[in-house]
């Protein structure tokens, strides 16, 4: 089961405030489909909403093909750039 962590604005908008929950998924792509199933629109927002994804603490700009482990933590955060 992957542990999903959402930003406040995402959780307010889509999950009625639930900021952390578990989803069964072995890849990020599968996770997004499950998110959309459970919270309609959330998966699409995650895919198109300029977010960075942190898998087990590592930030990915483009994580959609990444595999997840048994108990991976997947955090969706505002896109990080730099200067």
């Amino acid at each position, binding site marked *: 089961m992957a542990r999903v962590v959402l930003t406040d604005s995402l959780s307010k908008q889509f999950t009625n405030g639930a900021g952390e929950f578990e989803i069964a998924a072995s890849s990020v792509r599968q996770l997004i489909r499950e998110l959309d199933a459970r919270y309609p629109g959330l998966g699409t927002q995650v895919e198109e909403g*300029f977010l960075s994804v942190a898998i087990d603490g590592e930030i990915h*700009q483009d994580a959609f093909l990444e595999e997840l482990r048994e108990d991976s933590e997947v955090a969706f955060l505002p896109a990080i*750039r730099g*200067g």
Partner: protein
Amino acid sequence: MAADKPDYKWVGTRTIRPDGHDKVTGRAKFGSDFTLSGMIHGRVLRSAHAHAVIKSIDTSAAEALPGVRAVITSKDFADQPSELAAAGEAMVNYKDMTRNVMAREKALYDGHAVAAVAATTVEIAEAALELIKVDYDVLPHVIDVDDAMQDGAPILDESLVPVGMDAKGPTNIAKRVEFTLGDAAKGFDAADVVLERSYKTAAVHQGYIEPHAVVSSVSEDGQAQIWCCTQGQFMVRTFTARLCGMPASSIRVTPSEIGGGFGGKTVVYLEPLATMLSKKAGKPVKMTMSREEVFRASGPTSAGSMTYKIGAKKDGTITAVEAEIRLLAGAFPGSPVQPACMCAVAPYDIENVHLVGYDVVVNRPKVAAYRAPGAPISAFGAESIIDELAKELGMDPLEIRAKNAAKDGTKAAYGPTFRNIGYEETVKQAQAHAHYTAPLGPNQGRGVASGFWFNIGGESSATVNINEDGTAVVVSGNPDIGGSRASLAMMAAEELGIDYSNVRPIIADTASVGYNFLTGGSRVTFATGLAVVEAARDAVRQLCERAAKIWEVDAEGVIWDDGHAKPASTNVGEFEPLSLASLAASASKTGGPICGHNAQNVQGAGPGFATHICDVEVDPETGCVTVLRYTAIQDVGRAIHPSYVEGQIQGGAAQGIGWALNEEYIYSDKGTLDNPGFLDYRIPVASDLPMIEAVMVEVPNDRHPYGVRGVGEVPIVPPMAAVANAIENATGVRMEALPMSPPRILAALDAARVKQAAE
């Protein structure tokens, strides 16, 4: 926890950079050093009003002036729908971008471009500007972030709908963000000590010494070539194509050497203008910004207004942090308020955190990224209040940081769990450093502060071409701001097993290398470096295959060692090693040119942490602050070229010191910029600073073959609070606003003296 350092031949040494000779002889070509025959010159007409409706622009007299070849206004640019851009740095909206580059309905800041002219000489172009008649309807303006949030403030854009909150009517608030961990209210209940403070920072400019410059040449068939100083030639291509209504494939952008960027050259200003002028004039157009234009019209970073509340137990455990951070975005939305919130207390393991951020538009130039965007501002507040907390609890400021330090497994306030980080090590090294216990004299004080930045990876492409003579060319696409091409060459030399002097790194234009995300985000040595390493390994694979062909053995039976193909074992056969040079010489017979290649979206950038120690002396008569000693300790992963890593640390610290002590945008009551020059916008000069000791802690990033971690941005995050904490230590006076310039320090000292006399 530092891993044993492997025995590298090149990585970790201090080589001479390949572009060095050209740079010390003046031969290197920067943005404005480029010329094309037949070139004409462009100049921009800029609004002198902070806020005005543009009722009409009459360019007829300018167009009629002999020597003028083209005049443009917003009419020449198609309007853009509201759509976020992913190719640049901060999330930019094309609708805003086209308006920033050339004003449409309104002039929104002093310096906003309203028209541009190209003429045969600079003098004629400037004369033509004088002939353009703009009819303005001047409006009330607002330039302070808190003022802009008040009811009744002048509104920049009536149609602005804030993201993340509801608005009662027209507003200047573009966005509200929120980050929550645990329950801050409970955390404060559990605290023995609770402090609340407010802080302000002023807008500062990246201060690159080289102004923006471009030459754009559009031929009659619509193909464009652009030479410019930029942090991202692919970004320039994308944005210019979009704004000028041209296909990206028709634009070829060649980056010149770049004279500083720090985030300020991750967007376009002149490039679309020069391109449109060139299109109209049928000639190459050169445009440069004067220093005044750089200050008035290119993006500085945000000014900030913040409130912080912190709670802790008597033993120093921080139980809760709450903060509201308000950053000004300039004329269009897009301040770095999100990363500001995310970085504020990132070095710490705190159970209960509640951070709210506001992005607010005001009549100032649109802000651009500046080295760890947002983080230095929020860290000023966080690291100052933690210092005050330490004092309140009677705890050593490094001790309280050590006690609450984020470690592997700590959940960051912005979401993910940290893994493989080096923050604790930086605090420990600070505690052990001789600087921390050196004696201080009268009017002297010491301050410490910590900082964090995420660092990024991103899209990277590289090619390693093996030349017939056994040398190699490393082709990549990131402008070299701080010596990165030397590191790329060193990593390639290490992989190939050849001499560093035989590896030539080049920075290619948009047509000659695959896509690269821009130079920024502390990513080049990490991400482009990784692509270079993989490309070199690809070349090595091919070299081994060639040897296998020559020896008539299986490719698995060949290994690469010390620049030579060798049989993996005696079972494979008795063969003399084949050098890279000999394999290169026979390449045409064994299969053709040998080119290693790699392109990927690099993930796994490791975050960076730093702890700084600063000593100051405050002159009680003038309020002048002298920085006596500065030590910057940073987790750098692995230093490929130690000198250039030190250089990033020293340079970032110097910018932070300038931000702390003297730099600020000063506005008149008309909303015009009073100090658009280096005389009155005071960046640190050589006599302002001491030597800056850079201590590199190496906790290798296991996601990079050489353990590289981004280093460029973290060093600017701690200095402002480190200096403020040192001033407090020296004088007993807590400065809560930047810059801490002499008049302000003097006023604070006087106020404290009066207060003391009264008590």
